[in-house]
């Protein structure tokens, strides 16, 4: 396990009168897969939405490679190499594959006109790289399967040089076979030097691939444990506590 890439310290976030996070610390190291686990409402999604610039923390600090950073927007997070695939919200169903891949980071010619040809070619290239073979980059995302969509989101993140890939429930809506494929892929990513944060409440998916688990409950971190020091049953008990 390598150096610390991201360190979130003492993060607080309040929605109205309710605290979603009450002083959470969270660490991501180089070349590791962290399972961020906990029951519904534990604050997992809120924490990663702060990391990816969707929410601003009320209090707390974020360090990237030891340097204090301020992530005020999704663009800030992307610049650091933090790519996030949000649950059910990664893609626009009514748009084509190519338009989705370059959404917000369009390839353009003069006057910001889209370089459609390049976008289409690049899209196919990126997808082929991760082993996803689609007929055309012009098909609407809505006609694809859940696994294919997840694949597109991952391919997009990889293409934009993700150093840390954050995935919120990446396997929940998938068939067993598709989920296995995604898990395989996450393992490959670690080998190629990308760190992953895997958020889920399905321990059976995250346990085989993760190196370490951070457990949240009611807005607090209640445990941080290496896989070698625990078992799936023990994790379950920790979450239920």
């Amino acid at each position, binding site marked *: 396990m390598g150096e610390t890439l991201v360190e979130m310290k003492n993060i607080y976030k309040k929605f109205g009168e309710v605290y979603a996070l009450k002083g959470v610390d969270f660490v991501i190291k180089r070349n590791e897969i962290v399972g961020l686990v906990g029951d519904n409402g534990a604050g997992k999604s809120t924490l990663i939405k702060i990391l*990816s610039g*969707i929410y601003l923390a009320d209090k707390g600090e974020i360090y990237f490679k030891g340097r204090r950073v301020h992530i005020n*927007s*999704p*663009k800030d997070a*992307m610049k650091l190499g933090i790519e*996030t695939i*949000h649950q059910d*919200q*990664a*893609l*626009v*169903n*009514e*748009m084509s594959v190519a*338009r989705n891949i*370059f*959404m*917000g*980071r*369009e390839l*353009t010619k003069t*006057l*910001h*006109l*889209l370089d*459609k040809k390049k976008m289409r070619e690049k899209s196919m290239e990126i997808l082929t790289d991760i082993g996803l073979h689609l007929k055309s980059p012009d098909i609407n995302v809505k006609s694809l399967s859940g696994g294919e969509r997840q694949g597109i989101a991952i391919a997009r993140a990889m293409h934009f040089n993700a150093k840390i890939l954050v995935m919120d429930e990446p396997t929940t809506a998938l068939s067993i076979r598709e989920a296995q494929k995604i898990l395989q892929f996450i393992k490959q990513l670690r080998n190629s030097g990308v760190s992953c944060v895997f958020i889920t409440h399905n321990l059976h998916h995250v346990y085989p691939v993760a190196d370490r688990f951070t457990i949240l409950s009611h807005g607090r971190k209640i445990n941080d444990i290496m896989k070698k020091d625990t078992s799936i049953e023990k994790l379950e008990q920790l979450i239920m506590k």
Partner: protein
Amino acid sequence: MKRIIKIIEKFYSYRPATIFIILIGLVTIFSVFSPNHTFLNLKVITSILRITPILGIVSIGVTILMICGEFDLSVGSILAFCSMIMAILFSNGMNVFLAAFIALIIGAFVGMLNGIITVKFGIPSFITTLGMMMILRGVVLLLSEGMPISFHPEQKHHIFSSIFVGNILGIPMQFIWFLRVAFLFWIVLEHHKFGNWVYATGGNKEAARAMGIPTNKTKIICFIIVGILCAFSGIIETTRIYSSYPLQAEGMNLLAISATVIGGTALSGGVGTIIGTVCGAILIQVIDTGLLLLRAPAFWFRTFIGMLIILVVIINKYLRRR
């Protein structure tokens, strides 16, 4: 034969196809059944080309905004407000070009106000623009004291009228403006980065935001586009009829939404085309004129449009499910 079927299939997968076929069908029906086939008379066609752009230009704005996931019910009021300001400024001796320019700026400003209120306070644009519709209509009535204000720029600046409502080779200038506006925004939606932002914002706002698209800014810009196009349409209409009147363009909001929806744009956002809306706006005018020529009572117009809206949405839903 197989090839023909393939071409037909491809055509049908294109969203505005439905509306295009209905348009051709209706034009044929009206041409055949109007007494002495007057529908194909050059005068009738020119008249359609002359009137369509008023609704059409506004509808293009409404389409872009609807793709972006928002509504504007205040379009008719913005149009009337901007026209009225232009007419008043002009009648007080201001240069007509400057007066028209100020009308455009005011249109943009009202659109921006609609956008900022909707986005910053997080209220449905239905509400914001419903309020704006009534506010501006009230202001227009106050300004005009209920009376029309005449507008005769042709006496001082003949060129002003020629630019907006003249003819080129027998084609009314306003229709050429309509096509220009349609082309411009077709480029924007299909071939510009901003178009991608509009579709993404309307299709899945959260996903767009997570990818770094400034969704609020995108929406506000769409509202501004609507405001400018309303003002532009108002300038044309006021120049065409030589006056601005307090109830100008009343009811245009629903007609513009009709043209947009008939043209295949989804009320839920994220889906729609400019070409569809152009056909939708022409279709509405064709029906209006066609029924008139068939000597059907004028009341049929609304009934017909109403049936068409429902029919087209059902067809589109069926086509999309495939």
